[in-house]
């Protein structure tokens, strides 16, 4: 609660200093004018309380200097317009003089205390942010040290063995060379993921939109995964005469690659993976399709075990790995997909299928070109 409130305070304090002075003066002037017009029914000492509340409210949102200005200004205004005799700063009654002094003190103390509380809260939030970062950092370090050190160990071990070839059979040698190759590719894959993640984090990803043949896009990603998909059946469904979409080929290829790779890794041998594309449709209130929209809908589904129900919403989080996940993977693949899709102003959705298996759906707004007009030139 207090944090929510503080957020509002922080947001208002983003109004620049000069404007804050303006708003302070305006608030005091408005309140004073209102009280003045009601001065026949409002005792002038009650007006002091109303002005005090005004200063307190200002203190909740603004920096200390504009608040002090409001305190001083309201004291002067009260003295000049409300304390008899009116329209002069002189005070007849000694009780009123004491009242004015106290008014000024309370307003000032109020301002300073509120300011201090806000400062402490700000620090606490910074502290909390830092703690979150440290937790994230530790998770990253754990999965990274595993993901990077395993293949590095394999490479060092294999090359150590190969440096004494007289002890090895020809088959051993060939196996060790194979291990080095495999480990290097795994290492490269992880580095690729980390680079993509840091590109996303630093916000330097700007999609280069170009006309894409969706079939070519999907197959380009799938063909790169041929070794990983040896034990799976892959189906690609792209409608006949499907239009071209304006997308970043490289980013979308990587997104599809990561999704299909994810399915390949987390489904048992023999599982089916289906990738389908269609154009978005607007559906009317009576679920009658009204019109096609400039939107690509890509789905990657498998008939594997699906995702645990309570983890479906967390899989796109950075470094998130399923509770009972097998080893391998840094938990970056799916968050990269999400990042690349969002770079296209699109969205990603994961659901478990009723018959078992998982389905990822990407919805990406994109310009469309119908190729029919271009053919046979």
């Amino acid at each position, binding site marked *: 609660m207090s944090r929510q409130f503080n957020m509002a305070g922080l947001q208002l304090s983003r109004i620049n200093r000069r404007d804050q002075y303006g708003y302070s003066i305006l608030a005091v002037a408005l309140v004073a004018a209102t009280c003045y017009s009601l001065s026949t029914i409002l005792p002038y000492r009650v007006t002091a309380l109303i002005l005090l509340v005004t200063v307190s409210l200002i203190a909740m949102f603004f920096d200390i200097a504009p608040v002090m200005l409001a305190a001083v200004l309201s004291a002067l205004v009260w003295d000049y317009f409300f304390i008899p005799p009116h329209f002069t700063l002189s005070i007849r009654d000694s009780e009123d003089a004491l009242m004015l002094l106290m008014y000024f003190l309370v307003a000032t103390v109020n301002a300073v205390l509120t300011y201090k509380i806000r400062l402490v809260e700000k620090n606490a939030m910074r502290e909390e942010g830092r703690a979150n970062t440290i937790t994230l950092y530790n998770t990253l370090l754990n999965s990274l040290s595993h993901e990077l050190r395993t293949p590095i160990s394999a490479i060092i071990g294999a090359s150590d063995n190969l440096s004494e070839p007289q002890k090895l059979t020809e088959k051993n040698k060939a196996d060790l060379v194979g291990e080095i190759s495999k480990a290097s590719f795994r290492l490269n894959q992880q580095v690729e993921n980390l680079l993509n993640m840091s590109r996303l984090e630093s916000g330097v990803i700007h999609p280069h939109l170009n006309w894409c043949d969706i079939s070519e896009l999907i197959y380009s990603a799938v*063909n790169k995964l041929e070794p990983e998909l040896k034990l799976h059946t892959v189906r690609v469904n792209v409608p006949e005469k499907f239009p071209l979409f304006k997308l970043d080929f490289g980013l979308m290829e990587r997104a599809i690659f990561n999704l299909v790779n994810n399915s390949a890794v987390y489904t048992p041998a023999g599982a089916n993976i289906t990738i389908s594309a269609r154009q978005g449709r607007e559906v009317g209130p009576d679920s009658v399709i009204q019109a096609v929209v400039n939107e690509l809908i890509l789905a990657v589904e498998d008939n594997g075990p699906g995702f645990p129900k309570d983890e479906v919403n967390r899989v796109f989080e950075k470094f998130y790995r399923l509770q009972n996940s097998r080893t391998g993977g840094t938990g970056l693949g799916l968050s990269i997909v999400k990042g690349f899709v969002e770079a296209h102003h699109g969205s990603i959705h994961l659901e478990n299928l009723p018959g078992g298996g998982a389905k990822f759906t990407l919805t990406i707004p994109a310009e469309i070109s119908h190729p029919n007009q271009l053919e046979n030139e």
Partner: protein
Amino acid sequence: MNSAEVLIIDDEVQIRKLLEITLESNGYRVNEAATAKEGLILAANHPPDLIILDLGLPDENGQEVLQKLRQWYDKPVLILSVQSDEENIIRALDHGANDYLIKPFRTGELLARIRSALRISLPVDTESAIEAGDLEINLSTRVVRKNDVPVKLTATEYALLSLLAKNEGKVLTHQFLLRQVWGPGYITQSQYLRVFVAQLRKKIEADANKPRHILTESGVGYRFVSES
């Protein structure tokens, strides 16, 4: 058999060592430079048949080195770089690089690119036929055969295929292909290229979805290979 001389400009000792072993064991003669300055001097004093250039050199940006080289050096330059973003690749290709290979690379791939670059730098015989596995492209009769059966191609399809095939092994950028086949006014009309590549693949590939001849280079362009 190959006695071509290759100059390697790369600041990493490990990469130079690896390239040296790979190239020498395949019959090439190798010269090395660790900096842009050294590389430019070596290239000028003793022009090699091919230059392998790293983009991340300590003393000068590789793209600038490439432009300096291209002022007088007309033999193949192959870029070998860790920079994998499309902009850098396209920029290097536009500035006259013959090919671009991203580190880490497979040595087999590197050797294939070198062979292809050296072959393309020979004058093209327009009277000859290009044999590419199950494909035969006769440049004088303009007849394309797949498994000895003639393939009907439209004029644009033929222009695209023959341009790709004449540059066998080399990546051609989208812009280059659009300018050469459709004309300078079409360099942003990449939808033409997408549609015609798809049509062409249906006609000449055994499986259009697993192309073996016209390969997609994501975000950069297309590359024709005889067999893969």
